[in-house]
């Protein structure tokens, strides 16, 4: 029921015959030096990391200036406060912290005299049962494989999932999210559809499954919708809605994490 994806696929099926791509030069306007917050609290005991950067012009290289000297703390609803210290520049960590399902975590960031806040609820873990590979009906002719994750969704609660995939340690540049709107309480097999890296037998594929809260799901889902430029150019892109106030780029996500690695057959 991932409709944008469905039509992206069907449409490309028609276009394959005639369409063509060309790299072009475009002069873009710049609105840079906007604060970017990337905060992750996981259910694995260890250092938790919050990164502060600013955005750069599209024509720049992908190196993002760190925001230094900020005060960063995370608290939970029970009143526990975790202090984050900066090292290296722009990366703020707390050495020993574990996210607990059901807890609401709130980050408090003070930088340049402004205070930013964001809250995220750590969802209950849904176990990643297995990862499999199979022939892709979509492009079987070139021998590439598709990767499928299998899990049993928990009944009666809204679950949201974010998947990250690496092929031979190279990150697949696609946002891959799913929720249980249509599959609540069922055994689910979800295809990690991508057209970034061709996956072949013998490749090492690693999948990380994150259980995320609703706001974080909307953040990733919006990015995913903007990624698939279907007929007519897809949805008009904009900064995805996030949980940070006042407005800043990025997200603050408390999520569970599980990783599985397979060798593609």
């Amino acid at each position, binding site marked *: 029921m991932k409709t944008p994806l469905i039509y992206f696929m069907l449409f490309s099926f028609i276009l394959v015959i005639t369409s063509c791509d060309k790299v072009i030069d475009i002069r873009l306007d710049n609105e840079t030096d906007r604060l970017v917050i990337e905060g992750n609290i996981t259910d694995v005991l260890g250092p938790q990391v919050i990164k502060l950067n600013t955005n750069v012009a599209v024509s720049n290289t992908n190196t993002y200036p760190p925001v230094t000297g900020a005060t960063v703390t995370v608290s939970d609803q029970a009143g526990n406060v975790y202090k984050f210290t900066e090292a290296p520049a722009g990366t703020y960590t707390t050495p020993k912290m574990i996210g607990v399902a059901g807890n609401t975590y709130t980050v408090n960031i003070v930088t340049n005299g402004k205070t930013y806040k964001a809250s995220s609820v750590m969802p209950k873990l849904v176990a990643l049962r297995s990862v499999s590979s199979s022939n892709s009906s979509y492009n079987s002719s070139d021998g590439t494989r598709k990767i499928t994750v299998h899990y049993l969704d928990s009944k009666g609660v809204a679950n949201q999932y974010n998947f990250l995939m690496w092929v031979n340690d190279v990150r697949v540049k696609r946002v891959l999210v799913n929720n249980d709107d249509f599959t609540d309480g069922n055994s689910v097999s979800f295809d990690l559809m991508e057209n970034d890296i061709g996956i072949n037998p013998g490749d090492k594929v690693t999948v990380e499954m994150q259980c995320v809260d609703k706001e974080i799901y909307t953040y990733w889902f919006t990015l995913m919708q903007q990624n698939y430029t279907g007929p007519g150019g897809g949805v008009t892109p904009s*900064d995805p809605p996030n949980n940070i106030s006042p407005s800043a780029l990025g997200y603050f996500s408390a999520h569970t994490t599980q990783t599985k690695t397979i060798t593609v057959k």
Partner: protein
Amino acid sequence: MAKSIFTIFITFTAIAAYAQKKATINGTVKDAATGETLIGASVTLQELSAVGTATNNYGFYSLAVTEGEYTLLFTCVGYNTIAQKVSLHKNQVINISLSPKNGLQEVVVRAKRLSNDNVVLPQMGVEKLNMTQINQVPVLLGERDILKTITLLPGIKSAGEGNTGFYVRGGASDQNLILLDEAPIYNASHLLGFFSTFNSDAIKDVSIYKGGMPAEYGGRLSSVLDIKMNDGNDKDFAVQGGIGLISSRIKVEGPLVKDKGSFMVSARRTYVDLFLKLTTDTSIRGNSLYFYDVNAKANYHFNDKNAIYISGYLGRDVLALKDVLGTNWGNKTGTLRFTHLFSTRLFSNTSVIYSSYNFVVQGLQNTRSFKATSEINDINLKEDLQYSIGYQHTLKFGFNILLHDITPGDITSPKNSSYNERHVEKRHGFENALYASDEWKVNKHLTFLYGLRLGGLFLLGPGTFKTYDDAGNVISSKIYYSKTDLVKKYLNLEPRFTANYVIDDQNSIKASYNRNTQNIHLLSNSSSNTPTYLYVMSSNNIKPEIADQVSTGYFKNFSDNAFEFSTEVYYKWMQNQIDYKDGSQLLVNQDVESLLTYGSGRAYGVEVFLKKKYGRFNGWIGYTLSRTERKFDDINNGHYYPARQDRTHDVSVVGIYQLNKRWTFSSTFIYGTGNAVTYPTGKYSSGGLTTFSYSERNGRRMPSSNRLDIGATLDGKEHKKYHSSWTFSVYNVYAHRDPYSITFRDSKTVPNTTEAVETSIFATLIPSVTWNFNF
């Protein structure tokens, strides 16, 4: 409201009573060869140039004049003019059959008087397309197309390459009322928008109203595209068809009872999928990709006063990825129409109309199988009356009772599927209307066309109806149990007014104001022609969309009406426009209305049109300068921003040249400013992926687009029994890469940088050939 309509009616009846010593001529104008009724043929008096009328949508005319001796002139584009002497001392019925002109003949024997309807008739903002012209305009893969052709007119813009959606004077594509024999068509595209649902073989007449909407039409903001199917030949049996590269078509027509009744059946099917079966590539072989459609119509004329028509349309698209996913969608319509002449002056048309659109998406994989469907069904009772009071007044009035039945979304799945069953509550509602209008010829120079339409929406139970706040949270929820429970009611009064000042028979100035409202809204958060159309009615949350338009224009004919020139200026305000919140998932969603956000819009522009209707060389040049903007509180900081379809300049040139009896050449050229788009103004890393940041909504432009298409028709040698022709066309002659989309991604060549990628659909020229026949 009812009272004021009544007052208007009484006033006119009074006027009628005073009109003395007048006699009425009425009748039907038909094609002499096929018996098809002719729409918009003009009926004038040679002796009194100010007196005249045109046949209505059913080929009927009525004209009341002071008793006397006259010469009646019947003119229609593409037909020989007939002059008929009449001694008028009592009411008379004059039925006329006009013989079609043979193109070349027309050049030699130039008709004495070419029509100047565009100057003298008050209607503005209207374009009528001639089917012969549509059939000669070159098109993609030889599949001639009404919708593609209308986007070559000023003020009407194509939604982009490979897309049959269209925008009229800044409106959205769901703000067009598309009628096929009076039945609304909810999805007018085939094959994800590459072709339209209208098979030109089956079409008789196409009119599009961009402004100055007549009061008999309503329910959509921007335009009315009124398409009439052929009635069928009531003289002889005829078969006609064509064999093309991607599709074939056939039409059979003939008399049921000679000169009294006829039928027509027309069908076509694409066969790209048959080629797919031939490939050795197993991944393609099992896929399906085709559409078909069937148009059928029959009519019977009991006598001069009573006739019955029945027509229908059925079309379906099927698309499937082998064993993974299938989808199919289509429209069904049916129209039963009864025309009756109460008197020489009072004409009535009663229609019962059915229209339906549905789509199905199916997952075909074992444990992931599901079937999702969505459907809208309409039943409509429509009564239209036309009453001529002297030659000064033509009164039109009627009503419309339309029941919408919407099944927003249903998912069914087998037991072992990972998908759950889900049923979104059905919705029912009446969309009713009452209208009256009068065309008042004040004197030789001045004509008013004015009217009033009262539209109402009555949303009915049963079901749970929620009201949401701006953030999408439920404020209140109420359960209705019965089909007769009224949930929400909206009444909208829509004034329509047009004035025409005729300076002389070659020059006129027109002005109009009209209000339109819309109570049925399309939700589809891709800007494209995906078939997952979801229609919703106005409700507790969605208010009726309202548009007010003012326009004025100058109309001039020259060279004995061979050339028509017009320019129109318009300004349009739109209220209660709909957009979606980010990350919306509209399908099979009970709370779909919580995802909507509301704003306003404005559109203004100038259209210039020069048309040569007659002669060996004909065609037109259209130019539009326009602006279309939207305003939403939560988009672009609440400032106006250009809508995606905002196109500053839009030029189209169409030329058709008949070289000799056998060869006809045609060509179209289009140029348009690029669509308004949002480009990133920065980038950052999010979860390890390069992510773009944005500032102003639609602040940038795609590169401009332009394209030249050419076509040629070779008519076969004259033959007693049959006739054949070849149509050749080349789409995108100079293989221009019209940009379709521009996207940004991590560079494939220089690590750690970003590149912009332009995608074009048709980067090459596309030739095609079709063989046509009839016998």
